[in-house]
């Protein structure tokens, strides 16, 4: 049966062009035909399934070995997991047609019957048409310009010659999606109602509008309970269609359960109009005054021509796609993948959403399966698997520039030029398939394809989720900076068919000229057009949709803050146009090298606005006036100004210089028993990532920055852990004595007093300008000694814990810490936006009182991941920060590590081992492996715990999509109690502002200051509380706030036991048994007594 029906269908297609009004009764009804196709498809699908299985694993492997061989082959091509995931995805999004679509198909039947019964009308004048429809209260969706009252041509209605389902539904490449999908019911209007010259001056579109209104009227009057509206097909104002939505009343004809819309699309028969006259370089809209003159002298109306031709292509494309899907088995699946990929990135066939949707994807793919190569060969091979086809398609989109290098099918002449935007010209139809794409839409598509392609070629990680599962269409996450530009109320109507489009084109041209290489990509998002009711009296069509254009920019981080732009030299012929473009801003300047150039200079200081935003605002004001220019809203700068000093890395320069001085002085010390091998930094202040710039005002000491000194190896070190610590102190004492002689102030401090195996002392070095350092000595033998102790099986548990803690502390402080600092330093130079993004992210963690639980390094790694592992690194604080938050919100830390850079291939195995050894995640919750820390646990050892990690995820999720202001608002209501520290005992570094009066600011560092160096009262207090109350209370801190949560397992009462680790109240429980409840009041009393005058206030919420 299958081949027969196929034959029949192609036959039908061939005769499409001719009038076949009388034979409609003989035709297979569309439903029956669909049924036939679907059966065929099922069969095809099964065989394909079987074949694909056969390819992977032979059905009856003669031996285990053969099977293994087959598997090993499959591993050679990329990752097998990715392929399996793809299959899963496809099975998830495929629609079960028979079950789900039955109600919709019933409806299609009904609509078809209604349309077939509409009586014909011939040769009605415009007056007659409007009168008739006015009486029936049906709005005729005439496109602008509306037909005048004096037009001579007549309108007619005749039954459609042919009706069928087209589009993705007919092809069965519909995917489940959020907003449902649409079934296209295409009606072929008979060519008898048109005349040869109707392609001119909107006549075709006016007749088409009347035809549509007649159908709308008939459906409306049929008494079916449906919601009807007119919508511009793909935002093309010339081509309205009817959208039928279900009533939702649960009646027999209600098709809500199918979750779809029905679109009624009128089509023109092929060859109604001469294709050659509608070529993109011809004119079809004559000025009113001159009448039908030769079109050579008039500007081409490419968009208009394409809109007419596009109406003739529905069935042609359907046949083409059907044929190709039989030839290339994976075609449909590749379409589904493409559809998902496009949808997640916000692309669709609508002009305002890029103009490249599923339809364009499949048509382009079908063309590329047949040709498109440089020597007439095909770009895609028919034997490709769905994944290969998808990837090859992306490869094509990413590498071929269709604007500079159009793709032509079936035409010889080079004359088929498309004014702006990409061109894929199908000579058979005379149509540029991508005619709906704007230049910016195309650039964005190409950019996205490039990004995805890079992800797909990552040898280590699959990136399946980023490619298909994550929704990535929010402009805040896509672009580095955004500008909302209002659309003028009265757009110039003479400027083209689509005034909004020509306005945006002009805007695009101006911005891309003005921003030069500061922006890598500019994209404009236009507001989408709204539906209109089919009853008159709805929205006035004459007005352009008001609203705003969202301009998104991908910046070039190295160039975007350049203050001066150079133009042509004085007297050069380009000078005039340069001056015309820049207006008053352009001035002649003489530069150091002696050249005199036209140039534009921007303000860098005393301005909250970044330079690129100044340029955008200036250009918009200059070209579109104050009314628009002054209302441009910029998004992005507020993120940068939230970071102290606007995120300028230069703020860290004094600290870095001081560090270099320290290194020099240490190296030049004479009289040390051993030579210094290495001095390395290990502090956030020395890797551009502390929240506040370390030396922000004179007269204040910075928080001491950690420095690690390593000596040349020597056999004279003692071979005992405690003795090593004492030797270190002796070294420090000697160093401090020598430094003191050189003029620095030094102190020796003790740490880990109760843990003899940990590092016990450090030396603080203070310079007079305020920089302070904390020097520790690294001795590589310690690690070996600690590890050897752990090998001892008789070690008591407590001692073992202590040694384990000492080992991880040693690794963090002396081995991984310095490496991490070095890496962050390096990356900050490579990515200018990294340092401010990290600092903003730390601020976010601080705002939400999480900085105690989340180590600084962990925050840094999270931000670095955004910069290193994505193929399009952020170039502004906003994108760096928001994309990291987005990542945090999506990171399933239970199931996967966040891998940074090129780590070992067995990173996932290491991770699996970590989880196996600790399935409850009591030790390592978040795991971030890097090159210098392959296990990825060094910085997450001390937190966050599981509860806190879950809270981080929840906070990040609520921050995604929130406004800038809301992201940084945190409430302490959720905590059980909140302790406020007296501000004067706060850390000096966090104080937001110095003295109110400039002359009162102290500029000298006194010895009292030095005596208090490193004193952190709130920190010491919380650490003590944490030791005393252990797991009973979880503390969250930031600045002068300490918030606490009672551990839920402590709050519920328990039976008597001696070692309950918290204060209790005895109570008589239900069964006369004693129950011990947590004594919250006494604990808070104890806390208050311990804190004494340090505490300002205690709020008890629960």
């Amino acid at each position, binding site marked *: 049966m299958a081949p027969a029906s196929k034959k029949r269908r192609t036959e039908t297609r061939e005769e499409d062009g001719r009038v076949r009004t009388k034979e409609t009764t003989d035709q297979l009804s569309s439903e029956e035909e669909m049924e036939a196709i679907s059966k065929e498809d099922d069969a095809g699908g099964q065989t394909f399934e079987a074949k694909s299985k056969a390819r992977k694993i032979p059905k009856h492997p003669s031996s285990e070995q053969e099977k293994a061989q087959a598997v090993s082959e499959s591993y050679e091509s990329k990752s097998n997991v990715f392929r399996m995931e793809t299959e899963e995805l496809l099975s998830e999004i495929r629609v079960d047609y028979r079950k789900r679509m039955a109600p919709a198909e019933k409806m299609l039947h009904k609509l078809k019957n209604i349309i077939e019964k509409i009586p014909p009308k011939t040769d009605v004048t415009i007056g007659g048409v409007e009168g008739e429809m006015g009486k029936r209260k049906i709005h005729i969706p005439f496109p602008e310009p509306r037909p005048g009252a004096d037009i001579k041509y007549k309108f007619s209605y005749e039954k459609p010659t042919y009706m069928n389902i087209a589009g993705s539904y007919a092809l069965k490449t519909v*995917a489940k999606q959020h907003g449902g999908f649409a079934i296209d019911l295409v009606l072929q209007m008979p060519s008898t109602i048109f005349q040869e010259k109707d392609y001119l001056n909107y006549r075709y579109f006016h007749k088409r509008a009347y035809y549509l209104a007649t159908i709308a009227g008939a459906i409306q009057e049929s008494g079916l309970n449906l919601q009807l509206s007119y919508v511009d097909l793909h935002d093309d104002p010339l081509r309205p269609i009817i959208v039928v939505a279900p009533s939702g009343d649960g009646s027999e004809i209600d098709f809500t359960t199918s979750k779809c819309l029905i679109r009624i699309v009128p089509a023109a028969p092929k060859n109604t109009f001469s294709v050659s006259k509608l070529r993109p370089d011809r004119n079809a809209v004559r000025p009113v005054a001159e009448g039908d003159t030769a079109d050579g002298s008039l500007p081409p109306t490419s968009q208009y021509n394409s809109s007419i031709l596009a109406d003739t292509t529905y069935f042609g494309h359907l046949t083409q796609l059907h044929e190709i899907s039989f030839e290339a088995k994976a075609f449909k699946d590749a379409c589904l993948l493409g559809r998902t990929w496009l949808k997640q990135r916000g692309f669709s066939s609508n002009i305002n959403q890029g103009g490249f949707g599923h339809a364009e994807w499949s048509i382009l793919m079908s063309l590329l399966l047949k040709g498109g190569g440089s020597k007439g060969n095909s770009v895609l091979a028919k034997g490709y698997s769905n994944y290969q086809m998808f990837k090859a398609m992306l490869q094509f989109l990413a590498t071929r520039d269709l604007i500079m290098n159009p793709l032509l099918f079936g035409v010889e002449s080079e004359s088929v030029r498309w004014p702006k935007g990409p061109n894929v010209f199908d000579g058979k139809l005379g149509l540029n398939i991508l005619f709906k794409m704007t230049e910016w839409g195309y650039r964005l598509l190409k950019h996205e394809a490039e990004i995805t392609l890079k992800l797909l070629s990552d040898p280590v990680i699959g990136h399946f989720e980023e490619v298909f599962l994550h929704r990535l269409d929010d402009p805040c996450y896509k672009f580095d900076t955004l500008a909302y530009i209002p659309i003028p109320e009265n757009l110039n109507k003479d400027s083209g068919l689509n005034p909004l489009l020509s306005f945006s084109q002009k805007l695009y041209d101006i911005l891309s000229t003005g921003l030069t290489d500061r922006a890598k990509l500019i994209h404009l998002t236009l507001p989408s057009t709204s539906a209109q009711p089919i009853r008159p009296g709805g929205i006035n069509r004459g007005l352009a949709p008001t609203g705003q254009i969202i301009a998104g920019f991908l910046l070039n981080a190295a160039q975007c803050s350049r203050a001066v732009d150079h133009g042509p030299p004085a007297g050069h012929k380009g000078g005039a146009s340069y001056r015309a473009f820049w207006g008053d801003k352009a001035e002649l300047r003489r530069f150091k090298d002696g050249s005199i150039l036209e140039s534009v200079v921007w303000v860098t200081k005393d301005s909250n606005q970044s330079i690129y935003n100044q340029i955008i605002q200036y250009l918009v004001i200059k070209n579109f006036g104050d009314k628009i220019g002054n209302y441009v809203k910029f998004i992005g700068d507020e993120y940068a100004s939230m970071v102290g000093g606007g995120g300028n890395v230069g703020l860290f320069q004094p600290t870095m210089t001081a560090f270099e001085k320290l290194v020099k002085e240490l190296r030049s010390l004479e009289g040390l028993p051993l030579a210094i091998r290495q001095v390395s930094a290990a502090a956030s202040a020395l890797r551009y990532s502390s929240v506040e710039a370390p030396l922000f005002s004179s007269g204040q000491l910075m928080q001491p920055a950690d420095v690690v000194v390593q000596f040349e190896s020597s056999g004279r070190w003692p071979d005992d852990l405690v003795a090593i610590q004492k030797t270190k102190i002796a070294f420090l004492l000697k160093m401090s004595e020598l430094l003191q002689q050189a003029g620095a102030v030094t102190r020796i401090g003790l740490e880990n007093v109760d843990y003899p195996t940990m590092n016990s002392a450090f030396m603080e070095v203070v310079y007079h300008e305020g920089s302070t350092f904390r020097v520790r000595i690294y001795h590589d033998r310690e690690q070996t000694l600690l590890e050897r102790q752990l090998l001892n099986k008789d070690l008591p548990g*407590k001692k073992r814990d202590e040694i384990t803690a000492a080992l991880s502390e040693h690794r963090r402080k002396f081995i991984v810490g310095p490496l991490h600092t070095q890496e962050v330093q390096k990356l900050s130079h490579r990515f200018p936006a990294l340092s401010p993004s990290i600092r903003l992210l730390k601020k976010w963690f601080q705002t939400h009182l999480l900085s105690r639980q989340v180590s600084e390094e962990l925050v840094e790694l999270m931000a670095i991941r955004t910069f290193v592992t994505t193929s399009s690194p952020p170039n502004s604080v906003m994108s760096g920060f928001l994309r990291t938050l987005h990542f945090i919100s999506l990171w399933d830390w239970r199931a996967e590590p966040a891998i940074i850079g090129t780590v070992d291939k067995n990173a996932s195995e290491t991770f699996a081992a970590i989880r196996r050894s600790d399935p409850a995640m009591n030790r390592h919750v978040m795991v971030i492996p890097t090159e210098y820390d392959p296990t990825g646990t060094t910085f997450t050892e001390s937190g966050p715990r599981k509860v806190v990690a879950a809270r981080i995820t929840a906070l990040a999720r609520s921050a995604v999509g929130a406004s800038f202001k809301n992201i940084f608002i945190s409430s302490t209501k959720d905590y059980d109690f909140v302790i406020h520290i007296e501000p004067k005992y706060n850390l000096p570094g966090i104080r937001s502002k110095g003295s109110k009066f400039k002359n009162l600011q102290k500029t000298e560092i006194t010895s009292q200051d030095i005596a208090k160096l490193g004193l952190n009262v709130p920190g010491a207090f919380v650490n003590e509380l944490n030791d005393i109350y252990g797991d009973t209370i979880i503390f969250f801190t930031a600045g002068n706030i300490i918030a606490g949560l009672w551990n839920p397992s402590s709050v519920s009462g328990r039976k*008597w036991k001696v070692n309950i680790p918290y204060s209790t109240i005895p109570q008589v429980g239900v069964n006369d048994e004693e129950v*011990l409840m947590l004594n919250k009041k006494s604990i808070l*009393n*104890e806390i208050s007594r311990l804190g004494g*005058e340090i505490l300002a206030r205690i709020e008890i919420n629960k």
Partner: protein
Amino acid sequence: MPPPVQIPDYTTLPITLPPTALVEAATHYLYIRPHAPKQATPDDPRSLFVVNVPIDATSAHLRALFSSIGGGRVDRVIFESSGSGAAATGGKRKRDDDEEDGEEGEGKGEVVWDRKLRKSGSSAVVMFVDKASRDAAIRAAGKVSKKGKGKKVEEVVWGEGIGGGLNIPALGISRYLTNHNLTHPSKAHLQASVNTFMAAFEADEAARLHALAKRRQEPDEDGFVTVVRGGRVAPARQEEAKVVLEKKQAKDKHEGFYRFQVREERKSRQMELLKKFEEDKKRVAERKNLRRFKVSLGILCFVQLHGM
């Protein structure tokens, strides 16, 4: 409902924590019973076991407490060991003789806190001068806890009645400032302590080496000489020996020499791949169960996805 006077074996002793500048007074409960450790000691009859001591308890506090309720004289108090100046985490709890606060631990290094704190819920052993005093204390505690039932007994306030002569270091800011100063000792002091330690360490080391050398030279009663580390050559380091051994083992292996080796290796590689394939399949299935393949199309959908 009034709290019970007795819970198995223990008498509750409610005490009032005085109000502070920020929070009102609170009632704290001590649980007491005669001390009965697994290994009996002669001091047991006059010792009292106290559970849930307040975090700022000192011997002076407990002494004052028991004298105010009318118990006998306290000889000394032994608190549950707290390893650090604050409190240590740890499995087995040791007893820590804490007669005088701020006492230096044996050779534990520097003292950086002027007053030790107890972990929340920890215990102490209070040793009275004799058994009679202890029993009086238990009786008195029972009276205090029954006060709700008619009899008038004065409230017992924590920290009241401590003799003025005792100088208990204050909490609050002075505690932290003192700690800060103690963690930055003078260099001379530090130098001295390092010198002492190093001298002792070197002496120990020398003695140990001497003993070893002696054992190397003197045959034992069976006439054998024990082989021990040290001697003329420096002892070989374990790690170095291991590396040498590994190198040797690697050299001894002849991989890919015989055909059967090649075949076997290939086979094992294939088996590994097969295993990996199965594992991957399992993983994908797991993720499917987590509904990970739902294309996320909005916040709502996403939330549902992760089952949150």
